[in-house]
């Protein structure tokens, strides 16, 4: 009995010293290279997370924000993520008004540095880098009753974040249901959510953080990306539209049979991937008709293209967001690589 006690104390001490050794190592940067999976969570459960997937692994590290910050909590759906000069901005959308936030973390470690909250942040939708230490966050603002048609506040706004001070310095009035933003030169092209019904393409001057122009677009514009030639692509219902950002003139319009889903630009910015009628297609930016070629004979709720490997990432969710969804990886040719269990409702990727 006494022997056993001595033994267990000894084992305990060894374990403790090993643990001590481990913690005295220099701070590791576990999330240096790989893929962040943004999990929206189940809406009213406010249980979104960010998981990390290494390129050569097929298991994710779950809820890495909580791992890096045990005393903090995201408490909302993860709506977006981007990095600006060593800082990561996580958009967190809570089902209760006044409880949305943006967590600012150190890239690589995910250690929290600051939190932006209400009233500066309300229904954050997308975050983009617009300068060496500046980010724009599109926000719907407080949402009302959907069935009464007052869900989208008019207008929503863009929160300007100064990452030197980690504060919101300004709210730029934008458009109703403001959502996707793409930067071209010193301008941001800003559109809105299809369901908002707003048909304005807003152009914001990045130097002054003010509105520069509003273009009536005819249908709801959703900016996607700049292609290899520097042209801006937008989705407008069933159409993919190529626009010259300098002259604001529409260069080309591809009209599909139905609205293409998850339109994502390739690593070389010379083609798009999208889903349509249960399949995943690719189409060149040089195409003149809306006829892509099938890459994968199934569709996904979200697509992502890894710029390092050109691999296609797709998300597949059990339809109830009460159990983990999956991320399925393919080579750019459409060959299946593997299927990885993520967390609740994976619905976005960030590759680094």
């Amino acid at each position, binding site marked *: 009995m006494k022997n056993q006690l001595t033994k267990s104390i000894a084992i305990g001490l060894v374990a403790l010293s090993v643990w001590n050794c481990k913690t005295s190592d220099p701070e590791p940067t576990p999330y240096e290279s790989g893929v962040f999976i943004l999990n929206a969570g*189940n809406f*009213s*459960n*406010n*249980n979104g997370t960010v998981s990390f997937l290494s390129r050569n692994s097929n298991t994710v590290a*779950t809820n890495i924000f909580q791992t890096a910050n045990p*005393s*903090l*909590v995201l*408490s*909302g759906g993860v709506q977006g993520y981007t990095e600006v000069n060593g800082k990561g901005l996580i958009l967190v959308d*809570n*089902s*209760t*008004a*006044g*409880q949305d936030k943006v967590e600012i973390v150190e890239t690589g470690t995910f250690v929290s540095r600051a939190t932006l909250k209400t009233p500066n942040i309300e229904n954050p939708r997308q975050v983009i880098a617009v300068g060496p230490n500046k980010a724009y966050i599109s926000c719907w603002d*407080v*949402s*009302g*009753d959907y*069935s*009464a048609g*007052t869900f989208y*506040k008019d207008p929503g706004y863009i929160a300007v974040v100064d990452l030197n001070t980690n504060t919101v310095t300004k709210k730029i009035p934008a458009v109703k249901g403001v959502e996707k933003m793409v930067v071209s030169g010193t301008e941001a092209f800003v559109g809105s959510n299809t369901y908002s019904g707003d048909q304005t393409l807003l152009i914001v001057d990045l130097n002054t953080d003010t509105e520069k122009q509003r273009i009536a677009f005819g249908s709801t514009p959703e900016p996607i990306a700049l292609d290899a030639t520097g042209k801006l692509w937008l989705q407008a219902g069933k159409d993919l539209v190529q626009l010259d950002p300098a002259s604001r003139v529409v260069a080309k319009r591809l009209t599909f049979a139905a609205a293409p889903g998850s339109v994502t630009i390739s690593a070389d910015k010379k083609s798009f991937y999208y889903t349509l009628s249960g399949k995943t297609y690719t189409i060149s930016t040089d195409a003149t008709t809306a006829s892509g070629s099938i890459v994968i004979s199934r569709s996904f709720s979200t697509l992502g293209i890894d710029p390092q490997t050109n691999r296609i990432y797709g998300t597949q969710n*059990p*339809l*109830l967001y*009460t*159990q*983990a969804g999956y991320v399925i990886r393919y080579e750019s040719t459409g060959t299946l690589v593997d299927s990885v*269990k993520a*967390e*609740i409702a994976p619905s976005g990727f960030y590759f680094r």
Partner: protein
Amino acid sequence: MAIVLSTGRSSFAQTDSLIAAMNRVETAVPLSAVTVRDIAPERFLAGQKLQRIDSTILLQFKFGSLTDLLALNTPLAFKNYGPGQLATIAFRGTSANHTAVLWNGININQPNLGQTDFSTLPVAGFDRLAVQYGSSASAVGSDAVGGSILLGSNPGWKSGIQATIGQQLASFQNNQTQVGVRYASALGQSWKLSGKTFAYRNQFNNAYPYTERQHYFLEPSTTAQRGFIQDLYFLHKSGRQISINAWLTDNDLIITPQDTIARERTRTQSARLLATYEANRMTFRVGWIRDVLDYAKQNFDNPSHTETERLISRAEREFALLSGTNRQLNLRIGGEWSHYRTRTDGYGGQLIQEDRGDLYALLRFQTTRWLVSANIRQAFVTRFNPPITPSLGAEYQLVKRDRFKLTAKGSVSRSYRVPTLNERYWIDLGNPNLLPESGLNFEAGLAANTPLSDRVNLTTELTGYHNRVDNWTYWNPTTNYHVENLQLVVARGIEFNTNLTYVQNSWRAGLRLGYALTRSSQERAYDAYSQDVIGKQLVYVPIHTGTLNAYLQHGQTRLSVQMQANSRRYITFDNSQFFKGTTLTNILLEHSLTWKTVPIRVQGQVNNVFDALVVGVKRNALPGRNGAINLIINFPSL
């Protein structure tokens, strides 16, 4: 190690069922002498656990919610959305739809949702509370799959008029007021009248001095509750009785009231009326229940509206087939008919009507050592075919000594649940062809009563159960959220409770411990993803729960400690996410005094003494340490 720790952390617990069970055997009065007024589940479910909550506890929770009372005194788990917000029950590992809530013997679950929001039922609304464990469809009907909560009114026959006023002042600018009168008098030579008129209003402003606790937000909300109770009993010297019971409730919940765009209002109003005539061994009941549910966001003027009415009638006759002093055999036969009318925006707004009927026969046999019941029920529902539900239960006193009594119990019963009106009639999603869920429940237990000395008494009860529920409904996302009978849930568990009491002169002390192990899981594969779910613990059902209640009383002063602990609660079907286990501790100090012949009871309570962090379903923190002062003045008879 982890298992040991988590078990240790949560092993506390509950109950008074033992005393009740013991008393049931001990004080068996020949039935011919009394008019049987017990509702069926209290009398015809031999072998099943029945926990009567004693009046001391009801008095302690006079300003409390039913949720808190049950959580602190039973192993029942609650899915709680926040203070004053929706709270649904998980009884022995079943869902919110699987607990029948009876008020004076009538099921008052809201029929559209098939469940009760326990936050809308303050303890002030009833005089009696018991918890019937396990399936009891044969005696109760639909919904009694995991168990039943029995609420009831009690007549008081003390002559005169007694008025009572109660006021609570609590943290966060919350307050409650209760006003009531009880009266009794003779009405001529043959009749006696007893009545109670009682009203309450509870205002929960939830003005927290903080917006976050340990980085979890607190959700701003207000709840205004009002209630009115009217009971009248006319008792004839022959034993015939006419009783009228009414309970009106109005619950008005507003989430984020300060934000005029995002605010949400849920208003629940219920009216419950019941008339009962009891003569000899006949009972007739007529009831009417109206439930209104209004939900609105932003603009409160034009809410989404749900309105359901039920007309209920029931007739029962009890036969004493044997009525010796050592052997009694009783048969109760009964029939029930209800008419439902619902007008619900989600069903298209048109009037939908249906009829439900039940026929049942309940048999009870009692000797000095045996108590056996055998029951059978067949329900009939318009456009629907519920199964026949029998049950058989027995209790046998194994040891019957002065200082030690041991009773063995066992029962087997079938149960069913008529799908909710939403499940059948909701536009596009509802499924009129649903089958009833059907359950099979086994349980067995041992109950012991050990008077250790003249001053110390110990009661202990251990129960194990296995409840298999098939055709469990599921809003199936792969068929556009149509409701289907897809799941098979198996719940099994162990419940242990013990109660130690000590009495000497003006001193009293007591300790009640309860522990429950609840393992409940979905067992059938029905889609490509169910492999991740099969065998996993159901959400919001902790595997380990415990309660500890201790008190020390000297004269008119009593100090009580109430503790509730539970292990982690999974929040996703695949158990990939969970809320950590928690322990909540409340302290209550009570003192009764008499001021110029007016008895006054003062209660001071500190809730969540250790400021534990408990998280609600929406991942919001529940409030930290908080307090209340309660004053109850009972004016003497006029």
